[in-house]
């Protein structure tokens, strides 16, 4: 008797386990996705990672939306907007929108969000995204004005990207940490559960307003953090994942040969570069010498990196910004052809005939970092290689303790040069160049309303930065999206995974 009840229990468990394994797929209308990096906080103002951007676009909405295909600005939470003067933008808000917790969306939410994030002491992670706003003012229930600190022509672009609207009552109470654990927005997907850094479960917002993002098709989205790409692929093979992205080129090539998967390659705005401590913030480093920085630039074979390692839609980049961004003038950039002999000669002229040893930091794409390290070794720059988590490296970077780092920046998919070049060269905590001339040009370029003036000064800044070789810009990234054939998805060129436009085949 006892034996048989035990047997039943085991059988029951087995059935539950089997159904658990089968739970979540097309039949259950649940899309299972993997993130590679641990997301520090779901609150989109308090993380600076790509995973955060993906969740931000799903959970929240901005006032404006930029169509990724046509680059046309459309009203999202705002129905229309106009410049009252150079420093004031007025928005008519969409009526009848509610947040996931039932709170109605109105001017108070915009005012609270803007005033909160614009205040520097509230510590928004990427100040560049918000520090151009001074304050917001309620005109009536559905009209709001945003006041700018200074002229900022990229305002519309930023409002359609990283600036999303939070519910005032809930955010006042929950704050960034509460918002990170139980996010509430107006977006196409609402959050069912968050296990910080590990597991995010989203559910379709059945009452999503008539947004240019479109209506979500797939009911549930289940996102897990799986740091190892092999594990991700193994789960894709075994059918417990439906979609993985940021798949390295080598693996994507192999997966493309298999019939049951669809591999799509799309370019991204992410630029990979070497940042050198030209200002000598980390102490007495060789990188304060222009010739050393030029030598680094000459030592790297960018064409080979792109052709052999990055592949896909990647391109060699010479600018400290992504070439499609407004103001990112490619012709302005000094180029450094691959010439190890010249690099050695420059090092010798700089007083390092036998090279030197430096720390090289990196946080992603270990393989690329190793290839870069090999190029540097070949001209005599020996390195002490340090591979850190992104947030740890960023902290070190802010305190100026990094002589040489392989970094990347995706500009939050903002299609304006200010999102990258101004992020790093305006004497902020991440600026290792600290060039006054660049600062002066960027001040003008960021705030001028006349497009030609902007281009002129971005051109000057880019020319100066590349002539001084503060960075060694190298390549743009591409992303491989791999999904089972059941998933229908056309990726966009901005590295944002849009669950709203996915559907089952």
């Amino acid at each position: 008797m006892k034996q048989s009840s035990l047997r039943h229990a085991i059988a029951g468990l087995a059935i539950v386990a089997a159904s658990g394994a089968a739970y979540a797929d097309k039949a259950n209308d649940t899309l299972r996705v993997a993130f590679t990096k641990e997301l520090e906080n779901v609150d989109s103002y308090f993380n600076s990672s790509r995973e955060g951007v993906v969740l931000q676009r799903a959970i929240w909405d901005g006032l404006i939306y930029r169509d990724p295909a046509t680059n046309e600005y459309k009203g999202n939470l705002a129905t229309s907007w106009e410049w009252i003067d150079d420093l004031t933008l007025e928005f008519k808000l969409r009526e009848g929108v509610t947040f996931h917790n039932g709170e109605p969306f109105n001017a108070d939410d915009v005012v609270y969000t803007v005033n909160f994030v614009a205040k520097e002491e509230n510590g928004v992670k990427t100040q560049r995204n918000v520090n151009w706003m001074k304050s917001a003012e309620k005109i009536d229930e559905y009209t709001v004005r945003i006041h700018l600190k200074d002229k900022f022509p990229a305002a519309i672009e930023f409002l359609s990207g990283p600036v999303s609207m939070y519910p005032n009552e809930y955010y006042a109470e929950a704050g960034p940490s509460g918002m990170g654990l139980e996010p509430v927005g107006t977006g196409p997907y609402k959050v069912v559960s968050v296990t910080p850094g590990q597991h995010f479960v989203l559910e379709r917002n059945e009452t999503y307003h008539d947004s240019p993002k479109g209506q979500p098709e797939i009911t549930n989205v289940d996102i897990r953090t799986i740091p190892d790409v092999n594990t991700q692929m193994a789960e894709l093979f075994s059918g417990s994942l439906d979609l993985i992205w940021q798949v390295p080129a080598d693996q994507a090539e192999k997966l493309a040969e298999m019939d049951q998967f669809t591999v799509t390659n799309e370019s991204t705005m992410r630029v990979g570069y070497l940042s050198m401590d030209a200002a000598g913030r980390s102490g007495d480093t060789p990188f304060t010498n222009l010739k050393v920085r030029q030598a680094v630039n000459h030592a790297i074979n960018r064409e080979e990196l792109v052709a052999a390692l990055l592949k896909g839609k990647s391109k060699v980049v010479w600018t400290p910004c992504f070439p499609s961004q407004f103001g990112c003038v490619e012709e302005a950039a000094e180029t450094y052809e691959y010439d190890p002999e010249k690099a050695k000669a420059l090092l010798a002229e700089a007083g390092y005939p036998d090279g030197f040893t430096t720390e090289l930091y990196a946080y992603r794409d270990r393989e690329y970092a190793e290839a870069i390290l090999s190029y540097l070794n070949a001209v005599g720059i020996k390195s002490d290689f340090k591979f850190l988590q992104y947030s740890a490296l960023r902290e070190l970077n802010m305190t100026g303790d990094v002589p040489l780092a392989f970094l990347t920046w995706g500009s939050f998919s903002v299609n304006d040069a200010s999102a990258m070049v101004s992020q790093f060269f305006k004497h902020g905590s991440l600026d290792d160049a600290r060039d006054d001339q660049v600062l002066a040009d960027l001040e003008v370029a960021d705030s001028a309303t006349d497009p030609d003036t902007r281009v002129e000064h971005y051109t000057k800044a880019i020319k100066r930065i590349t002539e001084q070789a503060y960075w060694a810009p190298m390549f743009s990234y591409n992303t491989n999206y791999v999904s089972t054939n059941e998933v229908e998805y056309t990726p966009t060129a901005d590295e944002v995974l849009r669950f709203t436009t996915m559907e089952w085949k």
Partner: protein
Amino acid sequence: MTQPDTQDPILAEITGPTPGQMLRKRVVGHQGLMIGVVVLVILTLIAIFAPLLAPHDPYAQSLMTRMEPPVFLGGDWEHPLGTDHLGRDYLSRLIYGARVSLMIGVIAALISGVIGTAMGVAAGYFGGRVDMVVTFLINVRLAMPVVLVALAVVAILGGSLQVVIVVLGLLLWDRFAVVMRASTLQVRGREYVAAARAIGASTPRVILSEIMPNIANNLIVVVTLEMAHAILLEAALSFLGLGVQPPTPSWGLMVSEGKNMMLFEPWMVLIPGAVLFILVLAINLMGDGLRDVTAPENRS
């Protein structure tokens, strides 16, 4: 008197083979020991003569010829074991990697051997308070998980060959201390030790010429075990990215670098893994064999 006739069977039986001859016979007759020694000698020679043997520069990167398969999977003889993810010759990196592994094994075992033996013999010989202190230290050391402590120390100091060698050397002395203490306790009561004391030999002399030779067989076994242990730990640390740093060729690092392509190019993990396995197996076979042939009376 005439010289004894060596052909005489009776005489031969009385004189018999010398202890040296008997030892040699046991060594040659012990299969595991012979295999271990031969493999180890070959690997050591490879490590020493790496610059002469390696067909390519192990650091020479060639991105255009990445991940070429080894000969037995359809590659060509230019790169007999293929190339890695940066187009570096796999065979050359394996050969240079032998240097790293053996160097770490030998030096780490040496450092920990000196520390552990000194402590163990002192504890066993003097007993009393010395023994108490040493036993306490051994217990403290045993309470610390080696891998975790090594990870933490390397994470703080930064990974490099020197750091890994020193950290492992300072962590792996416990078994030396335990075994040497027990062996010393066994032999210190023997008649020859008492005899040496009785004729007025100094303490260092008693330890060095009476005790040490009689516990050396145990020491050798522990040395081999700890060598293998250190080599595996280095591979583990390097695999985790905290050991030897790229571009230094290390087998653990090679496994780690090949891991990304494990599903499609398993040979990238299998080759360094297999070599690591062979080296550690050879060392262990040699250790077991040495114990068998040097202390046969303990076995029967």
